[in-house]
């Protein structure tokens, strides 16, 4: 059995803001093993980025409060001091951010920025760091890395910048790579390359990946397990197969429906989920998705637990609807108005 790298238990993240307490993450739990890819999916505002940042210790601050445990190789990262946390960042956990344009410091050369990460954790000289940087750039597929290493970020294209970001994240061989919507700002063709790159490097570097996205399609190929988040909560969780082929949560259906797919007849229009995500300060009572759910009924006024409701073990969801009812109706959402053509 593969090594269990990360164990998140009932993680809660709250922020005190001028408008009130924001419950950004509410009781999320998952495990991650070496060599696996965990996909976290949800709209913006669903708490997935906060989860990722919390793992990295980037949400620490005087107005943030955390509950639960984040056990990395048995150590609770929430209890680690700020100073010690520096050693985990970059070294044990690497992260790639959404927008490669702004995530790189515009005034330093690409090479400097990567070498800086290496030197922060390893006692190597400048020359060695630079050599390593060039090697990393080559590994992430930057052509001509010897000369491009001295370029500034604005001289790189978007895709290349993201590759540089990946190189930076992997520079110290982290066990876990967190990719926080790494492809959102990129062209579709580049997206695929980046996803493929992450998947390949995961094997090369023998690490685990948490891949965060709002687009289920992106991780369709690489994810081993998928968590669907809504309003700070996990609303469905299961293997890729479970989520794609037997989605239990109407919200998941919505997400699936918004993927343009070539393997199905083209719907008249892609599905959109009506309304907008709820306030995290005063969330609606009961099921958080209830106000936007076309299938909501009385019972939804009570919040359902995250339970295993189908025959597949490990496939959990938060929906009161009858399993058969769901299987009957979900295609209306997933495939739009053209179900009958299937």
């Amino acid at each position, binding site marked *: 059995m593969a090594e269990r790298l990360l164990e998140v238990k009932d993680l809660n993240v709250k922020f005190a803001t001028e408008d009130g307490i924001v419950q950004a993450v509410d009781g999320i739990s998952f495990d991650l093993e070496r060599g696996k890819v965990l996909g976290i999916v949800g709209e913006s505002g669903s708490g997935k980025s906060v989860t990722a940042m919390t793992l990295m210790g980037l949400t620490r601050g005087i107005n943030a409060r955390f509950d639960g445990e984040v056990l990395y190789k048995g150590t609770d990262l929430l209890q680690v001091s700020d100073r010690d946390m520096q050693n985990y960042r970059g070294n044990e956990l690497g992260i790639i951010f959404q927008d490669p344009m702004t995530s*790189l410091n515009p005034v330093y050369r690409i090479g400097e920025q990567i070498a800086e990460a290496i030197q922060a954790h390893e006692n190597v000289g400048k020359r060695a760091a630079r050599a390593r940087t060039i090697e990393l750039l080559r590994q992430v597929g930057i052509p001509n890395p010897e000369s491009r290493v001295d370029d500034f970020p604005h001289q790189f294209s978007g895709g290349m910048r993201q590759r540089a970001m990946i190189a930076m994240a992997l520079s110290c061989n982290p066990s876990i790579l967190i990719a926080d919507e790494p492809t959102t700002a990129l062209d579709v063709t580049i997206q695929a390359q980046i996803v493929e790159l992450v998947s390949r490097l995961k094997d090369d570097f023998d690490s685990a990946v948490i891949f965060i996205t709002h687009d289920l399609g992106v991780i369709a190929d690489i994810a081993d397990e998928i968590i669907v988040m809504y309003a700070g909560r996990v609303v469905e969780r299961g293997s890729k197969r479970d989520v794609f082929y037997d989605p239990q949560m109407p919200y998941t259906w919505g997400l699936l429906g918004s993927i343009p797919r070539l393997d199905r007849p083209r719907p008249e229009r892609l599905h959109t989920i009506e309304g907008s995500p709820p306030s995290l300060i005063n969330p609606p009572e009961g099921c958080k998705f209830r106000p936007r759910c076309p299938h909501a009924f009385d019972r939804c006024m009570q919040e359902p637990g995250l339970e295993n409701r189908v025959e597949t073990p490990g496939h959990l969801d938060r929906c009161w609807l009858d399993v058969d009812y769901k299987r009957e109706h979900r295609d209306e959402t997933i495939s739009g108005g053209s179900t009958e053509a299937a």
Partner: protein
Amino acid sequence: MLLVLLAVSFIVYFIFIVIPGGDPAQRIAGKVATQANILAIRKKLGLDQSFIVQWYDLVKALFTAKLVSYSNQTNVVDQIKQGLPATFSLAIGAGIIWFGFGVLVGTISAVTAGRISDRAITALALIGISMPVAWLGLILRFFLAGDGGSGVSWFPDGGYVPLSANPAQWFYHLILPWLTLAVLFIGFYGRVLRSNILDTINEDFVRTAKAKGLSSRRILVKHVLRASLIPIVTLFGLDFASVLGGGAIITETVYNLHGVGWYAAQSIASEDLPPLMGVTLFGAMFIVVFSLLVDIAYAYLDPRIRLS
């Protein structure tokens, strides 16, 4: 750039030509002059020429260092040159103080944002930028210098001692003027830097730096400060240029430092056009030159501009 200077000179000329009762010929002619004297002088100085010709003559005289004042016939360029040591001493010293302390104060304030030190600094900075310089200068001079007033005479009561004559006295005489001039700028720069830093901290690249596992100090110095200082450098260029060019009129007047600003105040009081023309152009020249330097520094600090 030359165009700006010419335009500036034209405006100064225009301002002073609209003064009625300030006929320079009459002033030169002195107490017992006759109407004929005045006409003769007017002709000699070319004051009977058309507006544009007079202006041209004035500018030409200035650039060939031949311009003399109306009131006492001293060479304007010489007088400005004589004011340089005092003005430069004031500007450079004060500049170092205000930039250094401004950065220090702004950084401390931003790093401890929300805590007592930040609040104290913010309050002090606000008070600093709320005090009129003339008043602050007078009060400091009164309370800390000159034994006729408060009884405390820690500092000399105004005046300037050349650096070459006595470095210790030079420094001693300049402490109060430096502080007076620097207080407002420290407050202002501190506040601007604080808000820049707080803006920069939210930049994605700072999050990246943090995610790399860099230490807080390194992130602050290498990533946050550098980006935050760029607008400060622009400001500093302009302010410093303005003070170098004689813009610290009030400070120089309050402390009786015979610099370029003091010379300007004197000339303004006697409505003496040529020196004022000279000083204003001199000041404008510094601002124009420093704007250029700022652009260059900007390009150095921000490669996006350098390469585009």
